[in-house]
């Protein structure tokens, strides 16, 4: 073969082996879509909406692995908040209605013990979002006792708010709540541990039939009204995890506890900082597109909670410029951190230092950042708190340097144009 033909043949072979131009796109041409639509103004009117977990909740749709599933979702509070909402609108939040979620969807072929791999394809946000300070709720609930709301105007690029002039938050949407339905053993085990915690004075949320959906299973006259799990805590089945790295392109691995998995989605966040410190992100309704795959028998690898995986998505979340603070588990003598009050510890109060306490380190780091934003950027304290909730990341520096484990709060400066 002449040299020039050898080069041509080699190039052709390489192209055939590597170029996506030659990929088989048959599946794309023939794929079908399962759409789980939103109906009515609120969850109570929507047969495709639930706000409790229980294996007796029937699926509202079926999908094959590989099919695109489109979920039309509601905001976390099932609210009618809008661009004119005021602080007094956030003090009457009904805990019974948190969180409305869309589904569940039966994934054909999935069995208990399998893993459902869910790849997030797209998040199409509503045009409005909100971030609230709900009194009594949030990481610094003791320091921010007044209600506050930032109303956001959104597109697929960025969010702006009259309440935070000069701030533009880029979209990094993800599913705040996403998971699979628990089985009967999980319901019993999780209810027991949460009841035990509540009995010890901790914060736990037992079943509440008022406002529960679906009414036939979880409502006041429902078949399992005393066993339907609340959606506020995330658990081994996923749920309200609020993890910002689960963005478009990542794949979430969820254990299946019931045949068909009972897959659900809701509570989409337009953007959020690691920690979601004020208690809310930029909360939105959205249209979410995912594709699922079954990984047989892999659920045994997930005892603590879901896993997730991806590639370069995390790079997009990194700031161009940042300012960061560092906190250690130190405190004023006499202070009892709010998250330890239920332990009634007489030893904690007089100490000026706690050991190996990441929560206290995070608290110190965050307060330092809020003070810095107020001093250097002209924010009010409420504005700074909301900003950190939607834009700043709390990260663990070390969990070895006793007693002062370190937590950083990292704020992207390019989002502040003031």
């Amino acid at each position, binding site marked *: 073969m002449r040299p020039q033909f050898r080069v041509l043949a080699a190039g052709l072979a390489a192209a055939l082996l590597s170029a996506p131009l030659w990929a088989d796109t048959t599946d794309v041409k023939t794929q079908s879509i399962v759409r789980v639509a939103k109906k009515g103004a609120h969850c109570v009117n929507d047969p495709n909406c639930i706000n409790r977990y229980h294996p007796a909740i029937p699926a509202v749709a079926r999908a094959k692995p590989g099919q695109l599933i489109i979920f039309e979702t509601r905001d976390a509070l099932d609210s*009618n908040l809008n661009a004119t909402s005021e602080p007094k609108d956030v*003090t*009457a939040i*009904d805990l019974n209605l948190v969180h409305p979620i869309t589904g569940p969807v039966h994934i054909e072929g999935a069995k208990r013990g399998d893993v459902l791999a869910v790849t997030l394809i797209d998040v199409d946000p509503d045009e409005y979002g909100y971030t609230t300070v*709900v*009194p*009594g709720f949030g990481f610094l609930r003791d320091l921010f006792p007044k209600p506050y709301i930032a109303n956001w105007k959104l597109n697929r690029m960025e969010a702006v708010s009259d309440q935070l002039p000069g701030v533009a938050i880029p979209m990094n949407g993800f599913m705040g709540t996403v998971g699979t339905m628990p089985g009967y053993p999980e319901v019993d085990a999780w209810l027991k541990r949460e009841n035990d915690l509540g009995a010890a004075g901790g*914060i736990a949320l037992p079943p509440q039939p*008022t406002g529960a959906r679906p009414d036939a299973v979880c409502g*006041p006259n429902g078949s399992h009204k005393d066993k339907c799990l609340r959606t506020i805590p995330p658990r081994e089945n996923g749920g309200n995890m609020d993890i910002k790295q689960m963005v478009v392109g990542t794949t979430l691995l969820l254990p299946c506890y019931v045949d068909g998995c009972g897959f659900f989605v809701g509570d989409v966040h337009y953007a959020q900082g690691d920690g979601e410190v004020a208690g809310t992100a930029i909360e939105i309704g959205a249209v979410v597109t995912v594709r699922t795959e079954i990984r047989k028998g892999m659920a045994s690898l997930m005892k603590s909670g879901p896993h997730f995986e991806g590639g370069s998505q995390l790079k997009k979340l990194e700031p161009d410029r940042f300012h960061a603070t560092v906190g250690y588990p130190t405190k004023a003598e006499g202070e009892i951190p709010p998250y330890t009050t239920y332990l009634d510890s007489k030893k904690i109060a007089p100490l000026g230092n706690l050991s190996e306490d990441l929560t206290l380190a995070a608290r110190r780091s965050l307060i330092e950042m809020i003070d810095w934003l107020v001093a250097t950027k002209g924010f009010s304290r409420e504005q700074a708190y909301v900003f950190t909730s939607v834009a700043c990341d709390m990260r663990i520096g070390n969990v070895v340097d006793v007693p002062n484990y370190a937590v950083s709060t990292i704020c992207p400066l390019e989002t502040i144009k003031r």
Partner: protein
Amino acid sequence: MNRRQAFALLAGLVVGPAFAHSPYRQWAVFRQRFLLVTTTRDDKGADDLGEEIARIVLAQLPDSRAQVSRARDWSVLASLLTTKQTELAVMAKERSAALYKGETPYQDFGPSPLRVIVQTDRYRLVCRDDFPVHHAYLLCEALMEEKEVQGFSVLGDSVIPAHPGAMAYMRGDKLPPASENEKEIRRAQ
């Protein structure tokens, strides 16, 4: 302690016992410290009256920290009241009567033991029957200071009973003492 001070931490005194071991504790922190007058976005008249009530109570009893809390709609308001997430609400007369009787559209909430503190020709300020007598008396007293301006009255409602504390004020009785439970909480503050 004078009457203005007697309202200090009223909401805490009311909500505290109910939420001592409650799942709603995080939300209840605020609701313990502020007297919330709950209204709804879908009834502007109720919201406007709620603002007036909060203003009057705050002026008369500043330690109550009274302010309006505005629910999404009538169903959320009913849920908040009946699941002890709020204590006071301004409701149109026909709506409060329906909730009291558990009639449409409130049949899911069942008959609810509401009591009236004050009312106007269109609205009632209602609470549950476990609202302390001591506090209902003080609220009624504060609001009736402006009965001519606002058209407040207590008696004469044949649908929902008046709260015993409001009744006591209208009869000219002395301020009922705080309950032992309330005193215990006050000592603990």
